[in-house]
């Protein structure tokens, strides 16, 4: 495909993207959030229609108006969340929508035999009569792939196929991929895990902010260069950008850290993260997608249960099992996904802003409107929140203003420690600067801040220290004088050596 352009309501999601897939090739598609991977895949598989550009399969130009049209040409997607009927059998799922028939009835014998033959052919040890819901995730994935193969797939799109697989199951998947490859099936492989890319893929195409960046043979590209391509940094000149962090937040003065987390663990996503935050400093948390950044934040705030590890606040051990425990320990958390986890869309700015502080604004069980109004006005003024008035529903506000309301929601509870996950993502430049300046100012007033960001400039210019995570572990810590985009990228790619030394015992 060449010069693919896709716009949503005037916003260009894909801009002049080229992509090609050879017969029997496994081609990786990588990029950070918002790079345009899923949009591209949706265009390839017929879920969206391109606005510009041309597409061809085996040299013939094609125009997929629907996923069915793409399937007819043998282009099939296997999604991250597997779309299967979990109460039906493997065979029924494989043949869904094109069941073998006899005299108008479903020919069950032919269906089970056909499924058995297919599974056998693919080298899968699986009972076609098994109910899909009882299978392990890996097996379900195999069923989805088998379905694709039986549809005559020439191109299979695997969207984060390993995200919920155990390591042994990944090996199984690799086996199947190699088998398909040897039969000439082309595979588009989307993953954030570099180990996998190098293990199974032939070429990689990098997208960034909806633009085509590069296509390379994986054998010819180093990890660090790949990360540079993804993040849009040249390896030589990692010049300072222009964020609104006026100066580095101050170094910590207190000896006892405000918050100290030791060896936090949670499933396979968090495998031992330790960190310390002191009063008045902004600790940046860096890492690629899936490295455990958000999981660390959620563990600290009690949003997700942890399997192991301890959290201390001002030197005292605290059990944080729920957000309420965290709030009681004066911890605040502005989550990454504003829409899903931040705003209450149908409530007003006033109610959203004071939601967390409501208990302190209540007299004799009744919300003190005057006091509430005072708080709302103070924060709307101080944060320059643009709303027609405090009664406007928050969903009508711009992303930047919603984010400011969420920051205000927490700051009016007078926290000691603030966690912000991607505080400026999807926010226009103006509001972005205001939020960055605000974080800076709050830290100067003594607040401890943990800032998660995939924007390296933001991390470099806004952090007193940067902690780097990879694969659920903290692998490096960069102190103030060592923080640079280059250093962060290096640590993301391979920072294990630094880590062992820096890791608390």
């Amino acid at each position: 495909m060449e010069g693919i352009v896709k716009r949503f309501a005037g916003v260009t999601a894909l801009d002049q993207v080229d992509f090609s897939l050879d017969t029997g090739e496994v081609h990786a598609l990588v990029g950070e959030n918002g790079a345009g991977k899923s949009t591209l895949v949706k265009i390839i598989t017929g879920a969206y229609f391109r606005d510009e550009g041309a597409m061809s399969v085996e040299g013939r130009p094609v125009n997929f108006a629907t996923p069915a049209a793409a399937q007819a040409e043998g282009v099939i997607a296997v999604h991250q969340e597997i779309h299967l009927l979990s109460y039906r059998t493997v065979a029924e799922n494989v043949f869904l929508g094109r069941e073998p028939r006899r005299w108008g009835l479903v020919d069950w014998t032919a269906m089970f035999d056909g499924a058995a033959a297919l599974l056998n052919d693919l080298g899968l040890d699986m009972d076609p009569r098994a109910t899909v819901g009882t299978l392990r995730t890996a097996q379900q994935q195999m069923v989805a792939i088998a379905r694709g193969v039986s549809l005559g797939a020439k191109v299979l799109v695997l969207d984060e196929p390993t995200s919920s697989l155990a390591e042994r199951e990944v090996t199984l998947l690799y086996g199947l991929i190699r088998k398909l490859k040897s039969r000439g099936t082309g595979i588009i492989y989307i993953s954030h895990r570099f180990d996998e890319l190098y293990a199974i893929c032939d070429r990689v195409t990098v997208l960034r902010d909806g633009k085509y960046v590069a296509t390379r043979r994986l054998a010819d590209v180093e990890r660090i260069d790949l990360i540079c391509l993804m993040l849009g940094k040249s390896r030589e000149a990692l010049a300072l950008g222009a964020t609104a962090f006026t100066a580095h937040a101050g170094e910590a003065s207190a000896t006892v850290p405000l918050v100290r987390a030791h060896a936090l663990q949670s499933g396979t996503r968090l495998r031992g993260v330790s960190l310390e935050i002191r009063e008045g400093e902004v600790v940046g948390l860096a890492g690629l997608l899936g490295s455990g950044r958000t999981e660390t934040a959620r563990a600290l705030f009690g949003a997700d249960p942890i399997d192991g590890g301890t959290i201390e606040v001002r030197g005292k051990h605290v059990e944080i099992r729920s957000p309420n425990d965290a709030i009681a320990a004066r911890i605040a958390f502005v989550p990454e996904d504003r829409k899903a986890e931040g705003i209450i869309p149908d409530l007003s700015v006033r109610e959203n802003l004071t939601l967390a502080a409501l208990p302190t604004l209540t007299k004799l069980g009744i919300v003190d409107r005057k006091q509430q109004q005072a708080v709302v006005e103070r924060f709307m003024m101080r944060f320059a929140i643009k709303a027609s008035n405090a009664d406007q529903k928050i969903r009508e506000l711009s992303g930047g203003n919603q984010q400011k309301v969420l920051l205000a929601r927490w700051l009016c509870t007078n926290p000691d420690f603030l966690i912000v996950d991607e505080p400026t993502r999807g926010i226009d430049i103006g509001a972005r600067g205001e939020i960055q300046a605000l974080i800076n100012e709050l830290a100067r007033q003594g607040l401890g801040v943990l800032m998660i960001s995939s924007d390296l400039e933001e991390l470099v210019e806004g952090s007193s220290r940067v902690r780097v995570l990879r694969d659920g572990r903290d692998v490096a810590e960069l102190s103030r004088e060592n923080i640079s985009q280059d250093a962060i990228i290096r640590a993301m790619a391979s920072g294990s050596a630094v880590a062992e030394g820096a890791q608390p015992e």
Partner: protein
Amino acid sequence: MTGPSSAVSLGASRIPGWLAPGSASGALIALIVLVLLNSFFTPNFATTSNFWNVLLQASQVVLVAVGMTLVIATGGIDLSVGSVMAIAGSVAAVQLGLGIVPATAIALAAATLVGFVNGTLITRDRIQPIVVTLATLIAGRGLAQVISNDGQLVPINEPGFEILGRGHIGPVPTPVVIALLVAAAAAFALRAMPFGRYLLSAGGNPAAARLAGVPVRRTLITAYTLSGLLAGVAGLIEVSRLGASDAAKVGVNIELDAIAAVVVGGTALTGGRATIFGTVVGALIMQVIATSFNMLLVPYAWSLALKAGIILFAVYLQRAKRV
């Protein structure tokens, strides 16, 4: 876009709250139109006695529907209200020998307990609200009959208790007074108490509410418990009016009328929004239709068809407004 100074509301540029989408405005207009039409075309409709009659007839549905509004605002539903009415009625009728106050208290405690059980099963054990309350709907009806000696009619010979359903305060029937007080209290709680904010947050975006420290589970349990309590009150009024507890009949199908009142009033079934005023208006619309059709000698079956039409239309309007 104006600057931060506009935090102080500018009345002129604002749509008044009662006209805003999702509010009770549509229902209110419909009610006014219905009343006006009936005043002209239905003989004896616009009389004082009929006025009180409509309010009296609507009062039980209002009580139940106020509780239902709270539950629906959380994104849930409570099908068990009719059976809870029967339980409260049976318990009161059987225990009246202890005196009016203790009997009433025990009956309301029983109703509250059912609501609490509903809420606990839904939040702690994560069973869907429709399943949990369907189960208590079935079990509750049986339980009410067990309490009243295997479903026998339990007559009530206690003039004091009959005040609840048949008495008047001034010209106003007691049930109407109770329903209005309850509706006013609920509207106040929704607006002015943290509970109201928590309810709408938990219904509007549970994940965000939890991260903001909202006691989501406690709020949901409270909503179902209150729904049980209010159904209990409605049950007591019912048996007091009838002068007997008929465990097989008290409150049958009232959950449907209550849900209809809530929906017609403008509360979204998806949760996160609630208007008690709308619910009251919705209940009155339903009652005005039933009463006027009755007075016009329209067959009951036809009034059901019209009710259904109104419910569908109300939901359709809600859909159209949500963009």
